C-alpha cells in the first residue's frame, strides 16, 4: 500500500461514503421491520416466561424470601447453606451417579437399537414407532407403571420373571441399595429411543459403499463398526451426550414419582431436594440458590462438551 498507487488511496469508511451505499431504501427497511415483527411474539414470550423468571430466580437466591413482609437481603448466605448442607451433597452424588448411568446406558441401548432397526422395511417402521412410545408417554404415567412392575414381593411382575431364572425376589425401589439403579433403568428405558432416532439419522448419512469396500477388504463386523460407523456418528453422539448431560442433571419427575427421594434418602437428587426445600419447607431463597448453582453447572457442562467436541473435530 505504501508503494505509490496510481489512484489516491481511500479508507473503507470514505469508500462507503463516497460510493452510494447499497440502497437502504424502503424495501430494506420493510425487510428489517418484518424480521422484528416476526421475532416479536417469540421474543415477548421468551422474555416473559424465560428471562424475567430467570432474573427473578437469581434475585431471590440472594434474599430471605417472605413475600408478604418483604424480602430481606442476605447476600450469599443461601448459597452457603446449600453448599454446607450434607443432604445436598449426598443428593449431588446421587445426581452424578444417576446422570452417568442414564447417559451411558441410554447411549449404548439407543445405539444398539438404532443398528438393529436401521432400514426401510414397513415392519421396521412399525417397530421403531413402538419403541419410540416411551419417549412420548408422560413420565408420571411411566413412573406409575414401573412402580407396579417393580412391586417388591415375589409375585410382583418383574420378580415373577426373575424367579423363572432362579433370581430374586429383589426389593427394587424399596431397597436402599437397589432404588437408585432401578430408577436409572427407567431412565434408560425412556431415554434410549430418543437417542435411537438421532443415531438413526446419523446412520442414514453413512455411505453404504464404505461398508461394501470394507467387506471386500475382509473387515470384520466389529472393525466396520469401530472404523466406519462410530467416526461417522461423532456429531450425532455429541448431540446426544450434550442433551443427556443437561437432562440428567435435571432429572426430577421419575425420581419424584417412583420414590420421592426415599428410601432413607438413597434416591434424593438435586432437583427433589430443591423441590422439598422450596415447596414443602417454603424456603424459596435457598431453593433458588440451588437452582442457580444447577444452572451454572449445566452451563459449564454444555460449554465443556461443545469445546471438547470442537477440539476433537479440529484434530
Amino acid at each position, binding site marked *: 500500500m505504501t508503494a505509490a498507487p496510481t489512484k489516491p488511496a481511500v479508507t473503507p469508511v470514505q469508500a462507503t461514503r463516497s460510493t452510494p451505499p447499497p440502497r437502504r431504501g424502503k424495501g430494506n*427497511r420493510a425487510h*428489517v*421491520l418484518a424480521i*422484528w415483527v416476526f421475532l416479536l411474539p417469540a*421474543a*415477548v414470550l421468551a*422474555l*416473559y416466561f424465560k*428471562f*424475567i423468571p430467570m*432474573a*427473578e430466580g437469581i*434475585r431471590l437466591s440472594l434474599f430471605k424470601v*417472605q*413475600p*408478604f*413482609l*418483604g*424480602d430481606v437481603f442476605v447476600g450469599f448466605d443461601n448459597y452457603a447453606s446449600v453448599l454446607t448442607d450434607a*443432604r445436598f451433597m449426598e443428593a449431588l452424588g446421587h445426581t452424578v451417579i444417576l446422570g452417568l448411568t442414564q447417559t451411558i446406558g441410554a447411549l449404548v441401548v439407543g445405539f444398539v437399537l438404532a443398528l438393529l432397526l436401521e432400514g426401510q422395511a414397513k415392519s421396521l417402521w412399525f417397530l421403531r414407532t413402538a419403541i419410540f412410545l416411551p419417549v412420548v408417554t408422560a413420565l408420571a404415567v411411566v413412573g406409575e407403571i414401573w*412402580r407396579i412392575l417393580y*412391586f*417388591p*414381593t415375589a*409375585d*410382583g411382575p418383574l420378580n415373577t420373571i426373575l424367579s423363572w431364572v432362579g433370581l430374586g425376589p429383589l426389593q427394587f*425401589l*424399596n431397597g*436402599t441399595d437397589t*432404588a437408585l439403579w432401578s430408577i436409572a433403568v427407567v431412565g434408560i428405558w425412556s431415554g434410549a429411543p430418543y437417542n435411537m432416532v438421532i443415531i438413526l439419522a446419523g446412520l442414514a448419512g453413512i455411505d453404504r459403499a464404505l461398508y461394501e469396500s470394507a467387506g471386500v477388504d475382509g473387515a470384520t463386523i466389529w472393525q466396520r463398526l469401530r472404523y466406519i460407523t462410530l467416526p461417522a456418528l461423532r456429531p450425532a453422539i455429541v448431540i446426544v451426550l450434550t442433551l443427556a448431560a443437561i437432562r440428567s442433571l435435571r432429572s426430577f419427575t421419575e425420581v419424584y414419582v*417412583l*420414590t*420421592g*427421594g*426415599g*428410601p*432413607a*434418602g*438413597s434416591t434424593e437428587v438435586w432437583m427433589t431436594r430443591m423441590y*422439598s426445600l422450596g*415447596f*414443602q*419447607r*417454603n424456603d*424459596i431463597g435457598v431453593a433458588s440458590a440451588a437452582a442457580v448453582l444447577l444452572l451454572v453447572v449445566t452451563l459449564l457442562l454444555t460449554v465443556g462438551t461443545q469445546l471438547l467436541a470442537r477440539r476433537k473435530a479440529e484434530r
Partner: protein
Amino acid sequence: MDSKFTPRSRGALAFTLAAAALLSGCSAGSSKPAAADDGQPIEVWARAGTDASTTYAAMFKEFTAKTGVQVNFQGVPDLDQQLQTRAASKKLPDIVINDSAALGNYTAQGYLVKVDKSTVEGNAKIADSLWNETKGLDGATYGVPFSRQTMVTMIRKDWREKLGLPVPKTQEDLEKLATAFATMDPDGNGQADTYGMTVPGSTERGYMAWWASSYLWQDGGGYLKDEGNGKFSATASTPETQKGVTWIKQQFCTPGNTQPGALTAATSVASPFFQTGKTGIILTGPYNFSSFDTSLGGKDKYEVIETPKGSVDSTVLAEGENIYVTASNGKPEQTKQVINYLVSADGQKAGMTAGKQPIVRVPVNSDVDAAAVYNDPRWAVVQNALKNSSKAFPSAINFVPIKQVAAEALNKIVADCGADNVASGLKDLDTAINNELTNQNAKS
C-alpha cells in the same frame, strides 16, 4: 430522527423499555400493605378438594341466606403455594381456613392479625385446650378453632373374625394381628398376598413422622417438648422415644407387617392397599370413612377400634382446622359475622352434613355432638379419643421443617433392618430438631 434511529435500534429501545417496565412492576414496594375494604364480597379460601369445596359452598349459601352477607369462596387444594402468590401481590384473601399446624408458618410470614377471643360469639363453648392451640409464640391468639379430629385405628373386622382373633388392646396385640393378617391368609384366596399395616412411610411432606407420632407418644416419647413461654426442646433421643421407634422399626423389619413398598409410599399410594383388601390395619383420619365404606363394600367390613395402648397410654395425633384472619382483611364487620356463623351450632352442623364430605369432622362447639349428627357410633370413638387421649403438634412454631427432618430420620432408621441404628439415628434427629428450633428462635 430518522438518521439517528435505525429501525433496529428503535426496536431494541422499545424492548429495553418494555423489559424495564416489567421488571420494575415485579419488584414494586416491599412494605406491608394497609388493609382496606374494596367493596367486594368477603373472600374466603380453604384447603379443599372438589368434594370438600361443595360442602363449603353449601355452607356459605346457608350463611348468605341467613345474613345477607355475600361470600366469595375458593377451595384451593395447594393452598400454601397459592397463598405465596397472593402474598407477593400483597393482597391475601380475607379469611383462610387451614390446618391448625399452619399457624406458626403464617405468623412467621406476617400473614395474620390477632383475634380477640372475647369478640367471638359463643367463645366459651369452645374448649380452652382448643383456644390454646391458636396461640402464637408471643402468646396472642391468631385463629379461631373450626374443626378437630384424631387419627383412628381401623381394622378389617371380617378378617379378624375369620382368624378368630380378639380386638387388639395393646401395641403387642396389634403387632400379632398384623403378622396374622400377613401369614394366615385372612381373605382365604390361598395366596400370600395380604399384609398387616398400611403405612405411609415416605419422607414426602413428612408423612412418616406424621404416621409415627401417635406410636411414639403411646410410649411416652415424641419429637419435642413444650418448655413454656414459646420455647421448645427436642426429645427425640430419650429412652421413651427410642422404645417407640424400636417398635416401629420392628414392624418394618417383620416381613408382611407393613405393606410392600411402605418406605416410599405417600398416603395416596398406601391407602389403596387397605381399600383394595391387601392390608387389614390402618391408622388414619376419620375423613376416610365414606370412601372406605364405598371401596370395601359396607360399614360392617371394617371396625373403628379404640386405639391400642402403648407402654404408657393410647395417645393419638389430633389435627384440625382453624379460621385465620389475614393482615390484608379490610372487612371487620363481615369477618365477625363469618366467624360467628362458622363456630355456631348451625354452622358446625352445616359443615358436617351440607355436602358429600364433612369439613367439620368433630365440632369445636360443645353444643354439637358428632355421633348424634352423623348418626354413626364410629364418630363417638373419634370424639372420645379427642377428649381423653389426643395430642396435637405444636402450632406456634413452624412445624413443617421439623416434621420433614423427623420423617427423613425415621425413614433412614427403619430402612436398614440389619443395623443397630435406633439410638444413633435418633441422636442425629435430636440435633437436627434443636437446630431448627434455634433457627426459629424457639429453642429453650
